[in-house]
């Protein structure tokens, strides 16, 4: 434990010196640009029995009743929970007004007794409060921020500005009401959050897809919801992908829109310098009649990355689906893609 604290304070000093300039994201990653080895991320302490996890609603609203299964499950893992006052609050689709949601999250960021902040659900709203947040509390008391979908905004913002790791995973609204009746894959996805929180090595059941591009990649894992990533382009929360492994997932988008978003990645220099690409689940909105796009998701991705040599894996178990395993956002991983096996290892 002592060693970990010592290490993290060293990393703090190192990270502070190399913070990206706010408001002027560098346009890196064009083919031929020099790949700089990224500074190791700051890793919050893993959780131990008795530690407390805060639950808040930075985006869509949810009731206390709806998060009860999550509270019970988390407490059965030996953690305490602290329920933010945005749980049960509602301002139309939001879990409270912008001011209320920002205040609840801020208070958790600043709370030294919390070891993690679990977002109750996604929806939409994180981008409306992200610039109101003061991250110094997180820097002083590192903690895991947990969520996905709209929470991609927070994961990107924290990683970009503090170089701090987070957890990309299911949220409270995905915990099954009746644990005994849940499908095994749902249970495994939820349990993977615990594994990530306590620092166990992650294991992913990855089915080999014949469209994969083989190879080995090492780098920090960044990414998230593709549409959300596009709407962060050019902002001070934008991801820098150079030398990293990028993962993407999305739901409810047309194929043409997915194609356009991959072009956004390309045109903002986010594909050229990648070490590897992980394509998770995409729930695709069917083409309108007469507007058939004529390309599959595989075609779209492969067309974009054809010129690059990095490995690409499809159907990774991450996304708006039952098999959505926790990923340690911002941490170094090794991705290995062969024709008969795909592995993604943290703890490298």
């Amino acid at each position: 434990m002592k060693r970990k604290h010592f290490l993290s304070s060293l990393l703090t000093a190192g990270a502070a010196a190399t913070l990206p300039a706010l408001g002027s994201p560098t346009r890196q990653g064009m083919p031929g640009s020099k790949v700089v080895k990224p500074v190791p991320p700051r890793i919050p302490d893993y959780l131990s029995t008795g530690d407390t996890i805060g639950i808040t609603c930075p985006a869509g609203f949810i009731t206390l009743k709806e998060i009860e299964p999550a509270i019970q499950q988390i407490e059965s893992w030996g953690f305490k929970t602290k329920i933010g006052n945005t749980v049960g609050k509602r301002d139309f689709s939001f879990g409270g007004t912008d001011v209320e949601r920002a205040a609840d999250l801020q208070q958790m960021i600043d709370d030294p007794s919390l070891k993690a902040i679990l977002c109750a659900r996604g929806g939409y709203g994180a981008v409306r409060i992200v610039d109101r947040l003061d991250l110094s509390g997180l820097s002083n008391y590192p903690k895991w921020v947990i969520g996905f979908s709209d929470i991609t905004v927070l994961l990107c913002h924290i990683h970009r500005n503090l170089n701090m790791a987070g957890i990309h995973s299911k949220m409270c609204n995905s915990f099954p009401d009746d644990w005994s009746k849940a499908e095994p894959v749902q249970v495994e996805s939820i349990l993977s959050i615990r594994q990530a929180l306590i620092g166990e090595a992650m294991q992913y059941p990855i089915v080999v897809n014949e469209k994969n591009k083989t190879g080995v990649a090492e780098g920090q894992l960044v990414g998230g919801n593709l549409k959300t990533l596009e709407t962060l382009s050019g902002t001070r929360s934008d991801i820098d992908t150079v030398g990293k492994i990028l993962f993407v997932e999305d739901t409810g988008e047309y194929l043409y829109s997915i194609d356009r978003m991959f072009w956004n990645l390309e045109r903002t220099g986010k594909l050229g310098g990648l070490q590897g690409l992980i394509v998770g689940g995409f729930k695709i909105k069917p083409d309108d009649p007469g507007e058939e796009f004529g390309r599959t998701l595989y075609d779209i991705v492969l067309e974009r990355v054809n010129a690059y040599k990095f490995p690409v894996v499809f159907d990774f178990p991450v996304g708006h689906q039952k098999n959505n395993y926790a990923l340690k956002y911002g941490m170094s991983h090794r991705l290995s893609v062969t024709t008969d096996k795909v592995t993604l290892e943290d703890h490298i």
Partner: protein
Amino acid sequence: MMHIPPYLQPGDTIALVCPAGYMAPERAQTCIETLRCWGYTVQTGKTMNSHSENYFSGSDEERLADLQQALDDPAIKAILCGRGGYGLSRIIDRIDFSSFEKNPKWIIGFSDITILHAHIYTNYKTVSLHAPMAGAFNEGGADGVYIASLRAAMEGGKANYFCDEHPLNRTGRATGPLVGGNLSLLAHLCGTVSEVKTKGRILFLEDVGEYLYNVDRMLHQLKRNGRLEKLAGLVVGGFTEMKDTTRPFGQTVYEIIRDIVKEYDYPVCYGFPVSHGGDNYALKHGMEHTLHVGVEGVTLEE
């Protein structure tokens, strides 16, 4: 200093091309006849008679070649796009603008064509025409005020548009270059070499078929990119066929925009006739305009 392409003279040649989505050739007939009737020679590119069986009006190479040929041909004085849809993102970085730079010509269209307007404004400082496209000549459009505004604009007429007052308008007067277009595309261009700087400019926005929450998110993207804070003025056009989520967003699209820009003090008008809904005046993108938002109504003058 902005480059203004030469205005059109009788007998000049207008090229019709489809750089994005597929368009059935018969949908362009009224447009072609009308342009001829106005005294122009019309040259239709291969993408206007495409045999494509998918979304696009030809492969990337075909769409690129067609547009490139129209850009490079000195006899062509204007390029009118058949329709938008999606597709310019895929070819914009492969277009060679060197002939265009020497001999600027009018590029006409909207929606996906926002990418061309933004790209040539930022990189080649050239004025273009955000205006109805070939399809808008159909269903009586050719005889309407919006197609008339397109003709007037390309023949050198100066814009002097009026629109009714709107309860959310913020009054005032602003002068600056007029830039903008489709919100989804402007958001999509953030962080790319095609992005438009908006400081000191009059920004106009329109969109179609988006979820309200997504309009909000895209406006936050522009705002977080610093694209809303130092505007001279804001012209909000039509946001047609808006969709809402099961849990309602709780605001109309104009209320969303009002709240996003409430901390600024430049004039804002809502409901300006620039849209996917048919009300769509030709706007000279990049040209200096004066916006006057008064209690009695709104004028936009070149």
